[in-house]
């Protein structure tokens, strides 16, 4: 790894890093797997997974910040559920990212497209 990874500070890295980081941990993927079956409280998640309740809370915080889960307060419990927002943002950004890149590419091709251009 190089310093470049640290220096990179704009959305090129940030945007999908948040989602990828969130999903880059096996426990967090397990949490997501559990939530696919339906909303769940921290306690229920901790009971179903081989990690402590504080650890589950920490993982949920990461997932929440990345937009992958959200929670509702039900009495004294926070009930977590999947939230597609994080993926929505990622996708919108990628659409723009590749459109910009391919526009530049097409411009470059046009520059040397003239009769007799090599094939």
């Amino acid at each position, binding site marked *: 790894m190089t310093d470049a990874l640290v220096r990179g500070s704009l959305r090129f*890295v940030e945007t999908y890093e948040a989602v990828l980081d969130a999903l880059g941990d096996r426990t967090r993927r397990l949490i997501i797997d559990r939530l696919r079956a339906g909303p769940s409280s921290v306690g229920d998640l901790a009971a179903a997974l081989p990690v402590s309740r504080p650890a589950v809370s920490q993982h949920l915080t990461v997932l929440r910040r990345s937009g992958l889960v959200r929670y509702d307060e039900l009495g004294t419990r926070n009930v977590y559920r999947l939230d597609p927002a994080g993926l929505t943002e990622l996708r919108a950004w990628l659409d723009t990212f590749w459109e910009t890149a391919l526009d530049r590419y097409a411009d470059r091709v046009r520059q040397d497209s003239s009769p007799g251009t090599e094939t």
Partner: protein
Amino acid sequence: MPRPTTSVEPVRKSVTVPAAPRRAFELFTAHMHEWWPLATHSVGLEDAVSLTFGAGTGAEIIETGADGTTCRWGTVTDWEPPHHVAFTWHPGTPEAEATRVDVTFTPDGPGRTVVQLVHSGWERRPDGLSARDGYDSGWDPVVNSFATAALDGPRHPPAATQGA
């Protein structure tokens, strides 16, 4: 049931360019540095000074910064000029988190090529195997399932995560 408005299905982009596939392929790969918007689409941003796209399977896509530091964006996994090139894609993120980009070049009459880009692999491998170990063994469907489940509501219990 309404379909999800979001998904992590592959990002698909297409552009038609006035060049035969061979030239279109060449410009996309070997000449990437001539068109890639490096100042905005790079890890080093304004400090990024060059980009090289190697030829052949196993070749690398490398960004170089003003101070000489390099950052590998990906590795070519499929090299089939002038029809197809595919590479892993992990600029600024660990290689284990690489996604995949496929680009195909299809003739569209004389001197015209439709270039289709598909950016996929959001689901990523569950085991952290490096990209070099090959991507042909399939991808963990966690994220695809996730996006669907998020809007479809409860469904069958999830399959156990690989490697769990």
